């Protein structure tokens, strides 16, 4: 397992990022954590639909995005808000999606991120298709798709990996192995020792990396992205991490795992080790922490306000994006919906 920054903040090798960029990414992880905790709190207040927290996976998501160019495609899941935001998806739209508003699925025009995939497994091959289109156009853009350990059990994982390898598609397969598919632990999902070794089935490189290590994730994704960009094809990355919280706000993890496990993993917190690393270089102190936490809270509060201030879709508008132009039968149904026709 590839590691650069140890849990105690020490370096194993050389840092792939300078201190300033490390501070930027640390700050991004802080914001992400604020978003995540705020979302869980809001869900408990009934302000959000079911929420899938990602606490513990911040380094994986922020590190992965840092390894990409700004116009590379990201195709990710319901648990990947930090990754999507880091690639340009605004917090307020991520919140809006979770309030149950369709407009949360519409990123701004320049943002190369698809709305999050709710189905497990089906979205990876979409990244293959997007990267394929870019390859045909020789645009230099690639795609990264993020998915969980559980998603690797789906047939669509296999087809996506195989097609990407066969056609040398510039797609990075980024698996956040957070230990569970809802209640099913990783070792009951598959008999392979690692997820990374599944790459062998496709003649593709596979790398296992400490997913709580910002540097290792960044470095690995960046290498895979540049490999993809230069036409050498896809890479599978297994980022080993842990979901500290429940699967979703509707889940009760005590049914399937011991508290000890989470306690153990808290010691490998992805923010903590960067904090130590930076403070040893005089680039972190309590005052800065307090400042960025306050900024983060402000940023997320603003996003929540924006999302909650959106009026719901107007009557009939739920039928307006089924096709580019509404066909006659949807016209008729829309008239019924708004009460203009029986």
């Amino acid at each position, binding site marked *: 397992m590839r590691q650069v920054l140890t849990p105690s903040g020490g370096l194993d090798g050389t840092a792939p990022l300078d201190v300033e960029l490390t501070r930027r990414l640390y700050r991004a992880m802080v914001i992400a954590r604020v978003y995540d905790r705020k979302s869980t709190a809001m869900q408990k207040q009934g302000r959000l639909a079911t929420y899938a927290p990602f606490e513990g996976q911040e380094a994986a998501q922020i590190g992965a995005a840092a390894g990409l160019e700004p116009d590379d495609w990201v195709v990710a899941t319901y648990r990947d808000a930090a990754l999507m935001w880091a690639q340009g998806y605004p917090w307020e739209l991520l919140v809006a*999606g979770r309030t149950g508003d369709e407009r949360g699925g519409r990123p701004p025009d320049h943002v190369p991120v698809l709305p999050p995939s709710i189905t497990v497994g089906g979205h990876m091959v979409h990244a293959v298709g997007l990267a394929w289109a870019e390859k045909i156009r020789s645009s230099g853009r690639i795609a990264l798709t993020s998915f969980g350990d559980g998603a690797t*059990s789906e047939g669509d994982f296999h087809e996506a990996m195989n097609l990407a390898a066969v056609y040398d598609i510039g797609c990075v397969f980024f698996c956040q192995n957070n230990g569970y*598919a*809802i209640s099913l632990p990783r070792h009951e*999902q598959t008999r392979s020792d690692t997820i990374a070794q599944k790459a062998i089935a496709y003649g593709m490189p596979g790398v296992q990396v400490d997913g709580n290590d910002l540097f290792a994730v960044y470095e690995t994704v960046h290498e895979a992205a540049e490999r993809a960009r230069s036409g050498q094809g896809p890479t599978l990355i297994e980022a080993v991490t842990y979901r500290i919280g429940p699967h979703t706000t509707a889940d009760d993890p005590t*049914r399937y795992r011991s508290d000890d496990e989470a306690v153990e993993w808290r010691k490998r917190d992805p923010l903590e080790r960067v904090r130590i690393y930076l403070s040893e270089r005089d680039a972190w102190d309590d005052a800065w922490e307090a400042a960025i936490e306050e900024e983060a809270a402000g940023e997320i509060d603003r996003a929540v306000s924006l999302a909650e201030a959106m009026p719901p879709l107007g009557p009939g*508008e739920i039928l307006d994006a089924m096709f580019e132009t509404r066909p006659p039968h949807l016209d008729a149904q829309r008239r019924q919906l708004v009460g203009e026709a*029986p």
Partner: protein
Amino acid sequence: MSAATSTVMTMAQALNDALDVALDKDGDVLVIGEDVGRTGGVFRITDGLLETYGAARVIDTPVAESGIVGAAFGMAVGGLRPVVELQFMGFSYPAFDQVINHVSRIRHRSQHRFSAPMVIRIPYGGGIGAAEHHSESAEAIYAHVPGLKVVVPSTPYDAKGLLLAAIADPDPVVVCEPIRLYRAVKEEVPAGWYEVPIGPVGVEREGTDVTFIAWGAMMKETRAAASALEEEGVSVEVLDLRTVVPFDADAVVASVSKTGRVVIVHEAPRTVGFGGEVAATVAERCLYSLHAPPERVTGWDSVFPLKRSESQYLPDVARIVAAARRTLEA
């Protein structure tokens, strides 16, 4: 099995009880699906079964719907009686190939030599403000697959009885379970094994002016609409289809021949929903008794909306009552 002859239960409890009774009675029955063991399933329908029957018969699986259904199919061909749980109807589609190309066909393909006595339980329908894919109603798709039976209970009693009938059935049965009725009402549910036969509609309420036909989740709104109209003196006959395939056309025809008016309600999209089949059957078989055109009150031909606009989609009492009025005023 408890000594009590019946207990007041929700549909969720009744389904859990059915599985318990079946696992207890028949060693060939097993439960298989994602998270059905340790967590007792997304909706806790399989709660406690792992503890009682063990991991060989209550099987937590990887996320692999096609594999789950395909493996359960193999088990069924091999003589077991697997009950598959898929987590939501929107996640049943990866298994669709297995269902339409194998599960529904092995008896025919092998001319009775092999069969697939298995059950596929699928929570379906909206109304709980869920994420995309968590509110689908696709009973019409399964109904169009020859070789499948499809049932859709709307009450705790029927849920248990239909599930047990499905488990006992020598052929594959898809059980569509209305999510928002899982815990909506309670009623007396007998202890032990009993079956609600697959096929016959339930005549919930007799009436003479108009027939309401619905199933599953939409029974709630349909009953409420019937009550509202009865208060105005309209006599409504309410049919709970309960089984979609085999479709009890005779009962529908008998009712509509009597009332001359029909309102069909479903949550699924309108185009080629099962309501079309019902309306077509009515037109074919009791045209001359009809006092008014049949009415369908259905979901729109759209993606099921998210929480904030869900109410724009779901058929409600007002729409059903309005449709009934149109038949009465025609």
